[in-house]
């Protein structure tokens, strides 16, 4: 087969793989919807009240909801109807904020994406650098210091770290704002608003990123140490390559693979971390939205946010797997490995 043919075959294989993973993910999403549905129905009290939350409900609205969601029919019918709504992208209506759930989430989503992306990407980049560096460094003490940092990073509650950062850098030193995403007085749009959000982003991103930094550094270090003890490193040295060339050509790419493989999973954890961080920093994202919805018992909104989080995690996993396939020639054509 020609080069081109091979490449086409690879692309085709990748497309197949992506489609099959997507279909599987749909199944999982279905599961999520089902569990959420059950949880709402299991919640004590009146189902309409459970969906709407702690708000007085006018009778006509109650009837409308009951009709819309067929609350008087069997659970199965109710579920199918509910599923139908979700499938059409109709996540329901948030009575508390007089807005559709979908609209609310869309409005808040960019803030969360900005926060998690900033935290995760900078943490991952630094983590990989730190981990690799400590693994190739000849001094034991370097590794010991990194190990210590990693363990500490894993042990601090994310939101509490956020509070301490606020305490120090915002309240005591006054270097950075203590919360929010923009200055209420400034009116900026588009890229300008993103730029304006910069100072507000620093503290929450750091608080969110420390744990991810620790995690990535640990994986990168382990992977690099593993690669260094591989036989092909001996080959490289026996060819006469210098240490720097060996690391550049033979270590980094192979060590990056497990680190990349772990990133998808970390997106989920970062989103979870974002819930508390957004509360600490009054960051207007879906994490804080979830928190507010829970406090207001606005269950349609709760379910909506959770579905969105699940979708984000699924997308992150898929992207990671595709990236992994592109980087590891052994996986191409074979089935994915976890």
């Amino acid at each position: 087969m020609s080069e081109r043919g091979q490449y086409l075959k690879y692309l085709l294989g990748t497309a197949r793989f992506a489609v099959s993973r997507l279909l599987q993910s749909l199944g999982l999403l279905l599961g999520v919807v089902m569990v959420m549905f059950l949880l709402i129905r299991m919640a004590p009290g009146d189902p309409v009240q459970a969906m709407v939350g702690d708000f007085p409900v006018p009778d006509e609205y109650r009837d409308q909801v009951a009709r819309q969601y067929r609350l008087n029919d069997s659970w199965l019918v109710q579920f199918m109807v509910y599923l139908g709504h979700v499938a059409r992208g109709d996540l329901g209506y948030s009575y508390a904020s007089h807005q559709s759930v979908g609209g609310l989430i869309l409005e808040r989503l960019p803030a969360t994406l900005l926060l998690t992306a900033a935290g995760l990407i900078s943490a991952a980049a630094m983590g990989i650098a730190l981990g690799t560096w400590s693994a190739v460094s000849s001094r034991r003490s370097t590794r010991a210091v990194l190990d210590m940092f990693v363990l500490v990073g894993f042990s601090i509650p994310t939101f509490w770290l956020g509070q301490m950062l606020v305490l120090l850098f915002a309240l005591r030193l006054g270097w950075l704002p203590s919360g929010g995403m923009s200055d209420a007085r400034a009116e900026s749009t588009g890229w300008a608003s993103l730029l304006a959000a910069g100072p507000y982003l620093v503290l929450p991103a750091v608080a969110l990123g420390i744990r991810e930094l620790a995690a990535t550094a640990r994986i990168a270090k382990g992977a690099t140490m593993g690669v260094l003890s591989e036989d092909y490193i001996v080959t490289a040295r026996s060819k006469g390559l210098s240490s720097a060339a060996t690391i550049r050509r033979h270590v980094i790419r192979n060590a990056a693979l497990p680190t990349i493989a772990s990133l998808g999973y970390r997106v989920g954890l970062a989103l979870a971390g974002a819930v508390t961080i957004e509360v600490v920093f009054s960051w207007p994202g879906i994490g804080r939205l979830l928190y507010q919805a829970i406090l207001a018992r606005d269950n349609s909104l709760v379910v909506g946010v959770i579905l969105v989080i699940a979708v984000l995690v699924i997308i992150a996993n898929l992207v990671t797997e595709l990236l992994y396939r592109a980087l590891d020639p052994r996986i191409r054509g074979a089935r994915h490995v976890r």
Partner: protein
Amino acid sequence: MNMPILRLNKLSKTFERRSFWNATRPLSYAVRDVSLDLVKGETLALVGESGSGKSTLGLLTMNLLTASEGSVVFNGKPLEKAGAKDMARFRRTVQIVFQNPSAAFNPRRTVLATLAQPLLLHGKPSKTQLRARVDELLETVGLTPAAAFRDVFPHQLSGGQRQRVMIARALSVDPDFVVADEPLSSLDVTVQAQILDLLIRLQRERDIGYLLITHDLALVGEVADRVAVMYRGRVVESGPATTVCDAPQHPYTRLLMASTLSADPNERRIGAADTARVFDVPRDDGAGCSFAGRCPLAESQCKTEVPVLGRSGQPGTEVACHVIQRRDGDV
């Protein structure tokens, strides 16, 4: 000849891979349509290249893997129909010795515990009886004085000693037949000879039959009574060991024999010639002879029709090859 203890009847094994598109598709035939008789007191050597299905056939024989098709016949009954009692008897009759003695033991048990377990399972000996039996086993396999080995953990022993303990474990149930999957290849050369001597001695003393899985053809010539050559899951030639070694029929067997190294520097077999031929091992689509891609004798029939084992020109040997069968048939 003795009655066979076990008959392998048209055994096949496929490993399937789950795939999203077509629910399952066969990954590979590890073993295809293999029939063999396993006899008490006799050594049947199973040779073939890596991945040809030797180990899989060994595990099928032991009923440690379930066959996709065909059956292992024990006592005139296929094993899948055997009841608990027959099964227990089967377990006492047929045992296995593995290649890698370092993975073959539960690392948390001493030699004594390792050997006592099967004795306790198949009987109710007293504590002193148990100890005596274990000591006897250790001495049988040449681990003397037994006291020095009883309370030791397997990973503290040398490879050869571990292999002896493994053989002792197999002997603990007093089997009539032992499947030995590459029992020597992880051992040092000088130790290999010792273990082989032990296996031969046990065979003589207890009339044990062996299925000796090996890739070492020199060994086959030394110890086997019969030999079966496997290629890509099929037996392509079988017969008395001396005949097959001295006058191989099947093109693959010939290649195999021509590739064995000589033990004599004055009779070198590996010349510098013939470097041009490289086998980018061709894919096997299941149609025709699986050796066709490498075979110097291949004809058009070979690409379409699967050859089955049949009589060859040599007495007692069977060959699965169109060309050889036709040639010998015509003569």
